[in-house]
């Protein structure tokens, strides 16, 4: 679609595990993650609130602070293991060839600096240029994400912008240095469809030009349906299903994926209760012994309570972790 060769791996994650320590012990928030992302590819990472999507993103960038700890695994970025890099080389990569759009824009933006000061700083760290030139690039960056009067906006502080504008400023910053990989964590949650479309169009443009790969973390199945080449579904720190967008959305094999698809509003009459997956995800410290989804799964058997299901794959490269997957022909 993008004319890029989607066979060169940009990112290969193998067995990545991150835990949070507390007085009672160490609890995995992501539990042996395996993922491969190719040049120019868009991977949609979806899953319930608290399933570990953001922690996965942080872990790739090595941004886990105590009491969190990355305990296992490899993160190969263009062939180099990020976990073996020292802090300085990692910092060089972040914001240049590897960038992350954080879920909470206010954690990225400094409240006492103007938008312009922060953006100029982000570029200046990786390129040389006179301040007026850099400011012009920043204003262009803002215009690309649909922010009007960009020159005036550069002189405002984060709290003077609307929620969606702050989110867009963060996106603009992430795109400034034309990275090879962008991890976008719920980048468009607070944005309306028109602006969302604009931003996605800009991202696709960036991909066409520089072959950037994209991990798009979201709960919005509508957006990934339109944007992603592949989808990975996360539950309680595990990727429970991956495959092509069409396979996963039209023919889900994992009961959790189907539950997610069923709760999308649209089929329920207005004002009526929406279908929700019964129960809620357990805290990290009370993860069930067998399949993590078993307490909420209507297909669970004794086997499911005993041992976590191993990954199984089909010829199309779809992988699922479930002892009793939905039959292949069943369409959503």
């Amino acid at each position, binding site marked *: 679609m993008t004319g890029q060769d989607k066979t060169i791996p940009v990112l290969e994650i193998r067995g990545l595990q991150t835990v949070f320590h507390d007085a009672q012990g160490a609890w995995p928030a992501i539990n042996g993650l395996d993922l491969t992302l190719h040049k120019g590819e868009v991977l949609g990472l979806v899953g319930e609130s608290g399933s570990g999507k953001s922690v996965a993103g942080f872990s790739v960038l090595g941004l886990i602070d105590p009491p969190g700890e990355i305990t296992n695994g490899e993160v190969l970025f263009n062939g180099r293991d990020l976990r073996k890099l020292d802090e300085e080389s990692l910092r060089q990569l972040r914001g240049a060839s590897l960038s992350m759009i954080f879920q909470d824009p*206010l954690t990225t933006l400094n409240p006492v600096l103007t938008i312009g000061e922060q953006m100029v700083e982000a570029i200046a760290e990786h390129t040389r240029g006179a301040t007026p030139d850099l400011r012009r690039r920043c204003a262009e960056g803002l215009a690309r994400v649909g922010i009007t009067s960009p020159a005036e906006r550069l002189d405002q502080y984060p709290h003077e912008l609307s929620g969606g504008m702050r989110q867009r400023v963060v996106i603009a910053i992430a795109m400034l240095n034309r990275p090879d990989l962008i991890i976008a964590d719920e980048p468009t949650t607070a944005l309306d469809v028109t602006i969302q479309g604009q931003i996605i169009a800009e991202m696709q443009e960036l991909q066409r030009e520089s072959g950037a790969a994209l991990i798009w973390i979201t709960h919005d199945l509508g957006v990934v*349906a339109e944007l992603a080449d592949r989808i990975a579904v996360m539950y309680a720190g595990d990727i429970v299903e991956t495959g092509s967008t*069409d396979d996963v959305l039209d023919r889900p094999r994992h009961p959790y994926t189907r539950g997610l698809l069923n709760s999308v509003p649209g089929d329920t009459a207005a004002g009526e209760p929406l279908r929700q997956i019964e129960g809620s995800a357990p805290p990290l410290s009370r993860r069930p012994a067998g399949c993590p989804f078993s307490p909420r799964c209507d297909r669970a058997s004794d086997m499911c309570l005993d041992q976590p299901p191993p990954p199984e794959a089909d010829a199309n490269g779809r992988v699922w972790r479930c002892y009793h997957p939905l039959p292949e022909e069943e369409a959503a």
Partner: protein
Amino acid sequence: MMNALHADAGPTPPPVLEMRALEREFTRKPVLAERLLGLLGRQIDIPVLKAVRSVDLSVHEGEVLGLVGESGCGKSTLGRMLTGITSPSRGELDYNGKPVTELSGQALRDFTLDVQMIFQDPYASLNPRQKVGDILAEPLRVHRITRSETETRKRVDEALREVGLDVSYRDRYPHQFSGGQRQRIGIARALIVEPRFLVCDEPIAALDVSIQAQVINLFLDLRRRRNLTYLFISHDLSVVRHIADRVAIMYLGQIVELAPAARLFAEPAHPYTRTLLEQIPSVRNRKRKFHAVKGEIPSPLKPPSGCAFHPRCAFATDRCRAEAPLPRDLTETHRVSCHLFDNN
């Protein structure tokens, strides 16, 4: 209309909140050079940003009023004015028939507790140094709503459970939560004082569909049980269609269309509303081509002349460029501001 509660809604219930010509502007303080020029008696030109421009709107008891509009059009500013966090630059706001500015004593206390807001940015609205249990207990203690610590604790646990969070999370700090968990803490905090009017500012944006369903079901249930009234700000039209009785469409600080939800989705009148409805993403509608927004998005710092939507409107005429349309009633409940409807 399908919304069970209001299908045959007899006489309209009284407005809980009524806005008349409500406005809010922002300016910045003059910088040094500008102040010096001012001292010399020169005219200084500091940009004025009109975030909300002359809004007339009432919210009736027990209804869910959806507020939809592009990023930056003024939704949060309007919501913050309703809750008294931001004061209007001009215009009037009545709560239960009385101007909010004249409330005092018990009436003011009622207003501050009755009208709660779920903030768009949960991170900024939670004190990072307070444990979640204390964040939730604070209003109960401050306003002496609960009589004992045991009762407070019970209420806190209930509130956590209602939003699908484990009660053991009480002892954690806000940064130890995922984005969606934090948003639910914001929801629990707004609900814990049992408000009568809730301004929900993108309350479910960071939630996955299953938890979204849980929270929406909770909202609908609270309306049924306690006749709670909502201003529901959201960019997600499928959610608004599901939960709202009426929908107001906002564009560059003004309400351009207002109608019962079923009617708005079936027969949108304003060209902007029609554009919005065309673009609802869905699981079924796959691999749509994405486009940059057509026409320049106007800036509230330099609002276009005439109808604010004219630079992007396929139906714009010279008249639209010169003259701002006035609101017209298409039916008793359907109001639109657009010259296309001037003759009806």
